[in-house]
């Protein structure tokens, strides 16, 4: 019980930090704001570590902590509750740990903001972490939904942080609207859960002894398939999967540490968490799992393809995130839940590192984000270069760095389920290696291609920026060692063992298909050789890159323009919607409704002007009218009897 009874402090501290920084943004000094902003997250991290230790003790069982009744209507009772288990504690560590490093990094990165902007930034950042913590701590879907909406709101606020530029506002709005589309699905899923099971508490649904869902044995019942699909729509929006992924690359409009926070610690992993949390429900709906696997694979390959032609350093990383999220969904879709969570963890390390490294580069280049105008920065920025290099190796999946283990676990699970998924996934992994080393070569190798001014300005960033980079680099390098495949070390997959209670019931439903160890080793060797070859090739190809005027092929152009997805969405959804709104505005509203309202007014005005003539002031005419009225009353009386 020890540490777990203080669990409420984990989200409460960032909330307090948000309030202090938000209210005191005009009075507190910058260093104090930075201290409070990072300090609360650090405290949360410390408590999370204690909780993690408590959870990993022998004999720990899932704990359900109820605080008060939140919604109590008729038979439906939704308490405000937290649930602590292995999955939660792991996510707590990722969110607060990586979040803390990003906060520290931000104190230096955002130094040039005005004082109130600085306070605003840190308060949003704290609120973001708070929402995400609420999301993973919640003991039922409603609490999760609150956090879910909270991260949506914070992403809107932070993407549009520099709101004086319309472009940033548009990106923020796009992120918000795309998320809302997903949220509708998520909300409908929750409603459906309530109406079919009468509860949305994880405890009641997934309890291993008498949970409602746990005791269902029917596979693919229509209600469960529908619920899981609706929840998956929500996950698609939040975790940027086809068809709702277009907001994530645009979300680069925000400050770089925010991108790191969105991509690594918070927000996009919410969808993965939600599905991993509902794993029993999903395991009962193999149809949905197939859909998830297909969408995940498609997203992985499409986003990776787009990434190879992008020239904005942050856009490359954004598409890479979309692609990596695709892998996580592929893992979920083939039932390898713990592999997906493992990838969330390693991805958090190397993607945060990549974004923070990119931020360091952008900082040194004075705001330049175009990699064709960089080059040769490796000599001037040693720490950034080396850490970025480690991250590249990690994300490409070269052993023994972290990405290799998690990606390999997902891919081998995919192979067991359907070799086609494996081949496409491997193709995506090769593309990943290609675009990452292209990015690395263009940024850090070769000659400098920017202006003289920028060349003089280039310098290594200071310690508050480089220290988080180094810590993350270490994590990205060794983070994979918690999940060494069985092939190499017996019982090496510590993470899998740690998470196994959460996924125990699913493992019973989905008969786990093991790849023979020999096949697994062959697959591994082949994929590693291919990846290394691709990486070296990409590095060689772009090392001495000079901006040329080479004609683009049609396909290259399509990739460069992100397959025109934004344009297509604009054409088939945004434009018709706008046209419809204009029609409603002009015809229905201005002519119809306004016409009725104004017409009633005009009619009354006209009628009263006519009736006024009756008030002639002639006493005789009044009497006459009175007599006529009475006669009418008599006549009515006569004929109604």
């Amino acid at each position, binding site marked *: 019980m020890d540490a777990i009874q203080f669990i409420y402090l984990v989200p409460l501290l960032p909330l307090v930090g948000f309030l202090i920084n938000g209210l005191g943004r005009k009075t507190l000094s910058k260093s104090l704001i930075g201290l409070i902003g990072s300090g609360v997250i650090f405290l949360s991290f410390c408590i999370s570590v204690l909780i993690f230790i408590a959870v990993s003790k022998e004999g720990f069982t899932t704990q359900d902590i109820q605080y008060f009744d939140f919604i109590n209507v008729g038979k439906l009772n939704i308490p405000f509750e937290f649930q602590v288990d292995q999955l939660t504690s792991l996510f707590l560590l990722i969110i607060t740990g990586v979040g803390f490093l990003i906060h520290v990094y931000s104190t230096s990165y955002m130094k040039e903001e005005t004082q109130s902007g600085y306070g605003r930034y840190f308060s949003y950042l704290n609120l973001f972490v708070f929402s995400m913590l609420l999301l993973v701590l919640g003991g039922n879907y409603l609490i999760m939904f609150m956090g879910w909406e909270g991260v949506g709101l914070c992403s809107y606020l932070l993407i549009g942080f520099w709101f004086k530029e319309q472009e940033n506002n548009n990106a923020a709005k796009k992120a918000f609207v795309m998320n809302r589309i997903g949220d509708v699905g998520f909300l409908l899923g929750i409603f459906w859960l309530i109406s079919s099971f009468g509860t949305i508490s994880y405890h009641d649904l997934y309890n291993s002894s008498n949970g409602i869902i746990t005791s269902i044995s029917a596979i693919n019942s229509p209600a469960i398939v529908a619920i899981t699909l609706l929840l998956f729509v929500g996950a698609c929006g939040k975790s940027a999967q086809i068809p709702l992924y277009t907001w994530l690359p645009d979300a680069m409009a925000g400050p770089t540490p925010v991108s790191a926070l969105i991509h690594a610690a918070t927000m996009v992993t919410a969808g993965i968490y939600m599905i991993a949390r509902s794993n029993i429900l999903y395991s009962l709906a193999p149809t949905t799992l197939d859909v998830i696997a297909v969408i995940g694979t498609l997203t992985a390959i499409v986003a990776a393809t787009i990434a190879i032609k992008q020239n904005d350093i942050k856009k490359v990383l954004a598409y890479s995130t979309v692609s990596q999220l695709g892998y996580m969904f592929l893992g979920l879709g083939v039932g390898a839940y713990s592999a997906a969570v493992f990838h969330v963890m390693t991805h958090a390390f190397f993607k945060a590192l990549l974004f923070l490294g990119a931020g360091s580069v952008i900082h040194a280049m004075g705001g330049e984000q175009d990699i064709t105008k960089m080059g040769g920065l490796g000599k001037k920025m040693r720490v950034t270069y080396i850490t970025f290099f480690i991250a590249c190796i990690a994300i490409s999946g070269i052993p023994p760095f972290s990405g290799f283990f998690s990606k390999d676990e997902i891919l081998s699970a995919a192979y067991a389920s359907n070799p086609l998924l494996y081949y496409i996934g491997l193709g995506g992994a090769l593309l990943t290696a290609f675009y990452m080393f292209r990015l690395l070569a263009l940024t850090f190798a070769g000659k400098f291609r920017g202006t003289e001014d920028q060349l003089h300005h280039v310098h290594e960033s200071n310690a508050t920026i480089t220290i988080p980079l180094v810590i993350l680099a270490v994590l990205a390098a060794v983070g994979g060692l918690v999940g060494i495949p069985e092939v190499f070390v017996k019982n090496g997959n510590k993470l899998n063992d740690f998470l196994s209670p959460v996924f125990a019931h699913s493992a019973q439903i989905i008969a786990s298909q093991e790849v023979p160890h020999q096949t697994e080793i062959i697959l591994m060797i082949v994929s590693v050789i291919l990846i290394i070859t691709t990486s070296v090739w990409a590095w060689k190809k772009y090392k001495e890159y000079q901006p040329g005027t080479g004609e683009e092929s049609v396909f290259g152009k399509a990739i460069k323009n992100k397959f025109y997805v934004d344009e297509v969405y604009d054409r088939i959804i945004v434009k018709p919607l706008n046209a419809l709104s204009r029609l409603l505005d002009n015809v229905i509203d201005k002519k119809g409704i306004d016409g009725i309202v104004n017409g009633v007014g005009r009619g009354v005005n006209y009628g009263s002007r006519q009736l006024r003539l009756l008030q002639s*002031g002639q006493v005789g005419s009044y009497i006459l009218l009175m007599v006529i009225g009475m006669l009418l009353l008599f006549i009515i009386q006569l004929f109604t009897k």
Partner: protein
Amino acid sequence: MEIKWYLFLSIALFCIGMIGALTRRNSIIVFMCIELMLNSVNLLLIAFSKMHMATVNAFGTSMATSAQIFVFFIMIVAAAEVTVGLAIIVMMYRNTHSIDINFLNRLKN
């Protein structure tokens, strides 16, 4: 005498009064016509009370009494109305030197 003659007389008086009130402009004549109408109703009430003299009401007394009490009411109301009305006419004459009812249409517009 049959009751219908009383009815005819009373209707005739009422109609005369009504037509007078509608057509004449002299306020005193209008006033007199109103009195005529009231009294025609009184006549009717008295006639019916005579007719129902033998009928017994819910309290065990004759129905005639209530009609006659009603007549007194009307007379009293008429008397009160006359005092107010005549006062108005006097004031009207003092201010306008006319007792034409159509003269007092200042509220119009």
